[in-house]
């Protein structure tokens, strides 16, 4: 895992096999090596071409004054773009919104996902039906679901707005963020639930029974046996959900388009590129977001030490 948080530059070296020549390697071992590199090369090249290279290019762009509307005025300006972004209230508002959405949606998703996992694991009947239903939010296209939420909350049009006195919730900052969190939680709880279910199925039933015989209550068994044993599964799920949530874009773009101070860092990055056409500022925002994600990953790995995932991973 430690390599994972290493800089992108470090991963570029993978293309160039380390020049350690070990003459004692047998012919077969060397052929195996070469085949290994050959088989990995196409994947590595594509991944570098699409991530490391653009990030490197973004670092370069971020040091320039580069506005597509003023192509003649391109000029190296050092860290001025970063100064401009970091002194802008829009950036800090977006960062605050992103952090709030991430913290609340991940926390709520963890609790609901755990409940969902317990229901899927323990329910006495209809287990298949529950799992099938839970997969629907996972499979649905985020944009499609976001339109559903938007119309549901539109006064005079939606059933949820009607149930809440036809308040125009999406035009108020706090309420709109609550709706965005709701949409995120609905969409991502099944993923969390499935990952936790996988962890839950590893908890031994004998241990549970033994504790029950010793007089532990259901709650004690859950907090003293189930949770500690599930720690690795919980950490993997949390790490991926947190980093995924930090990139939130689709739901906000559809629900509020970032109006009334509800834009996440991804939304202002997008608006800056396509409304202001400023590649320099946009690249500075890109790099800052990249640094934020790096910090989150670092904190997770620091905080959880060896429990952090190595070769194990869920997905986005």
């Amino acid at each position, binding site marked *: 895992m430690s*390599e*994972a948080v290493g800089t992108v530059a470090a991963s570029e070296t*993978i293309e160039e*096999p380390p020049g350690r020549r070990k003459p004692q390697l047998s012919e077969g071992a060397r*052929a*195996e*090596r070469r*085949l290994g590199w050959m*088989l*990995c090369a196409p*994947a590595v090249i*594509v*991944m570098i*071409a*699409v*991530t490391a*290279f*653009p990030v490197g*290019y973004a670092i370069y*762009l971020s040091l320039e004054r580069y506005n597509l509307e003023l192509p003649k005025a391109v000029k190296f300006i050092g860290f001025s773009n970063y100064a401009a972004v970091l002194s802008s209230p829009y950036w800090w508002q977006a960062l605050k919104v992103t952090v709030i959405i991430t913290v609340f949606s991940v926390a709520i998703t963890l609790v609901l996902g755990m409940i969902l996992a317990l*229901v899927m694991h323990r*329910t006495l*009947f209809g287990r298949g039906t529950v*799992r*099938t*239903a839970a*997969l*629907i*939010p996972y499979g*649905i*296209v*985020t*944009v*499609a679901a976001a339109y*559903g939420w938007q119309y549901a909350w539109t006064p005079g*049009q939606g*059933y949820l707005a009607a149930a809440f006195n036809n308040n125009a919730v999406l035009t108020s900052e706090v309420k709109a963020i609550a709706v965005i969190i709701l949409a995120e939680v609905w969409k991502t709880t099944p993923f969390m639930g499935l*990952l936790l*279910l996988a962890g839950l*199925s590893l908890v031994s039933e004998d241990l549970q029974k033994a504790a029950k015989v010793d007089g532990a209550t259901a709650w004690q068994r859950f907090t003293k046996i189930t949770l500690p044993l599930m720690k*690795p*599964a919980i950490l*993997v799920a949390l790490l*991926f959900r947190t980093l995924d949530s930090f*990139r939130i*874009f689709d739901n906000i773009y559809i629900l509020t388009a970032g109006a009334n101070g509800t834009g996440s*860092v*991804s939304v202002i*990055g997008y608006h800056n*590129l*396509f409304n202001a056409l400023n590649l320099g500022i946009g690249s500075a925002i890109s*790099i800052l*977001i990249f640094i934020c*994600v790096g910090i989150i990953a670092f904190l997770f790995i620091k905080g959880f030490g060896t429990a952090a995932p*190595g*070769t*194990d*991973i*869920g997905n*986005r």
Partner: protein
Amino acid sequence: MAAVTTTPRQKVSWGTANFVVVALALIPVLWMVSLSFKTPAAILDPSYLPKQWTWSNYSQILSTSQFIRPLVNSIGIGLISTLVAVVLASMAAYAVARLRFPGKGLLIGMALLIAVFPQIALITPMFSIERALGLFNTWAGLIIPYVAFGLPLGIYILSAFFREIPWELEKAAKMDGATPFQAFMKVIAPLAAPGMVTTAILVFLACWNDFLFAISFTSTTSSRTAPASIAYFSGSSQFTVPTGPIAAAAVVITIPIIIFVLFFQRRIVAGLTSGAVKG
């Protein structure tokens, strides 16, 4: 975990829990379906179910290239990206699972990094690069990033699957004179097919779902995908919001995926949790 005795009270409480889960999952989806069947006049009626059912929203969107073309793009781009990603990921995953070579840890780390990569950080530089290379607003301009982001997922799922495949078969093939490459293509690949199907499903879902790249790297319906095209729907006049057609389009792009997900649910669950469990 056979429950020795099932009291009626337990039955009721689990039944309630099941019902709540199913209802919470379905209500927002059915609302969208209901909206897509409402007449334009009834759109402003907040009742959950339409009072009058109509197909007009569907006939409207399915008769315009504004939606049909993006639908074709979505399917084409999704299938090509999936195919390329699965092939490249299989090769890399085979190497990770079977071969000994330096740099393996680096590859795993890199894939993990990309799995959590903030896509927005790519928008500005990729926009600039794609314009310079003539990839902007083409299928390739979307396929390349989709493949790159499908690869980490594919490498993880497939290497987990590949580890389960018995080594001896490959050795036997080599004894019979097969080269390592032949051993891969003729023996391992067919055994790995279930894992590849799972990977393909998850990668395709991710491509189909993507919105950020789709609205950033396209400018016309010649390459815009279906989710992105919905955001560009316009009403019959400047002052009408095309709620009905948007709902219908959302249902059109959602229902096949839901059926797909339900049909392949065992594979999807296995794929999502393979890494987390097997470690």
